[in-house]
């Protein structure tokens, strides 16, 4: 770590960035806050409603259901993607020609536009003409993600694992390759088992990158929208209606801008709180 000197004029380097990001972040945020306290019927005519929407959102079953679904979805994909990503990173070769091949192929899903990801999985999973759906039905599993909530959930999770596990793999891999060879040699001399090497060397050294991975996956999965709307559209019924989809249904489908804004803000604060805790822990580790 570089020891940094105090220099207040360094602010001048940062001002352009602050200005540009604030323009994009603060104005919409302020607008959403304004919406959250008012009722509108279009044409920029607003009526003050006070805290009505917040109260309504906090007490509505719809909000509770969507929130629970969102928590469930995020927990499931974190529980799958993080261990799976670590396992794959551990079994990847460290050097040689296969490294580049692995990395490029694995990074590929991350570079596909999100609506294409959704569309791709849609045609991949269709029960009559999709590879996955057809094969499953052919071997006798009753699978139809447009009709059965369970199938829809499995497809959604599978899609997210397909889309994002590589992020965890790449991060964990970067952490692993940064471990000096001497650590492995010392462990060998100390007679450490494979499990002990993982527990006492690899895992601690990956802690930082894994925190980043969990943080990014948490934030992005909490906000998942494009892929999901293309894949299931929130259905069947409301079974895969996660936060963002619900918000859009509310805001654009029913034009209940106020409640949608209030709901977004509640979500935003929850994510902010969780991320802040994470970020603080991450920085705490870094200082040691």
């Amino acid at each position, binding site marked *: 770590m570089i020891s940094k000197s105090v220099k207040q004029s360094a602010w001048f380097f940062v001002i352009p960035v602050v200005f540009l990001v604030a323009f994009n972040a603060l104005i919409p945020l302020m607008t959403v806050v304004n919406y959250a306290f008012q009722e509108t019927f279009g044409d920029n005519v607003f009526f003050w409603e006070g805290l009505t929407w917040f109260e309504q959102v906090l007490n509505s079953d719809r909000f509770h259901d969507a929130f629970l679904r969102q928590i469930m979805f995020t927990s499931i994909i974190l529980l799958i993607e993080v261990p799976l990503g670590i396992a794959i990173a551990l079994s990847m070769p460290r050097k040689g020609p296969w490294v580049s091949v692995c990395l490029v192929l694995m990074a590929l899903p991350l570079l596909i536009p999100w609506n294409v990801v959704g569309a791709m999985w849609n045609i991949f999973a269709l029960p009559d003409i999709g590879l996955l759906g057809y094969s499953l039905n052919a071997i006798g599993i009753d699978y139809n993600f447009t009709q059965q909530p369970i199938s829809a959930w499995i497809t959604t999770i599978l899609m997210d694992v397909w889309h994002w596990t590589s992020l965890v793999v790449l991060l964990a891999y970067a952490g692993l390759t940064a471990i*000096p060879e*001497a*650590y492995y*040699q*010392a462990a*060998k*001399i*100390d*007679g*450490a*088992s494979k499990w*002990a090497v993982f527990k*006492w*060397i690899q895992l*601690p*050294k990956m802690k930082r990158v894994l925190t980043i991975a969990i943080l990014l996956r948490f934030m992005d999965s909490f906000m998942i929208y494009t892929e999901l709307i293309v894949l299931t559209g929130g259905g069947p019924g409301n079974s895969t209606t996660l936060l963002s989809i619900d918000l859009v249904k509310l805001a654009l489908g029913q034009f209940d801008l106020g409640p949608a804004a209030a709901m977004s803000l509640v979500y935003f604060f929850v994510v902010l709180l969780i991320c802040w805790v994470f970020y603080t822990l991450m920085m705490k580790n870094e200082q*040691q």
Partner: protein
Amino acid sequence: MAKISLQDIRHSYLSNPRLDVDFALKHIDIVFEDGGAYALLGPSGCGKTTLLGIVSGLVSPTSGRVLFDEDDVTDMDTIHRHIAQVFQFPVIYDTMTVFDNLAFPLRNRKIPETDVSSRVLEVAKMLDLEEGIHRRAASLTVDGKQKISLGRGLVREDVNVMMFDEPLTVIDQNMKWELRSKLKELHQNVRTTMIYVTHDQTEALTFADEVLAFKPVRQLPRLAFVLNMSDSVSRVSR
């Protein structure tokens, strides 16, 4: 404890070495007597670290034999050779306490916890690590960490040889002297064979009973010759 003999060792990092320059080590014949303190002296890149690796089993020589006493250990695992090594940069297990760090090699060898505890405390005392022994090892200064690396070798009683690969590189000047005399003192107490790699002449001379000088590989004459020379010229007996 054992006498260590390297017989006609050659090593190359290439898979298919043909020319002499392909070899990092060529024709090494050395005997490290039991209980001796040796220093390998030479500039970086002359194959000292490779030599240590061959003794510890981290590197398999391209040809030649490694004997511990009369046993051929050339193809034996590192763990069964019962050696200890201290690296250039301190290697510690960050998330463990100092105590657990020192106990690690013993616990891996399934030694009863009561013996582990007494042995660790003994070594900690030897190295002045008793204070804050239950603190996280990561909180120590760099010389404290290097002492832990050293301690993990000392806790084991079956060690055939302790090797040091430029262990004082990252230690600052005044601590260097202290650690060096500590090592010397330790050698007198435990009488394990010690091999000490360095490019610093003073370090080599203060530590070792015998100094083996290396010359860079690229430069002629070859190592074999240098080692012959070392018998007559640079082998400083004290």
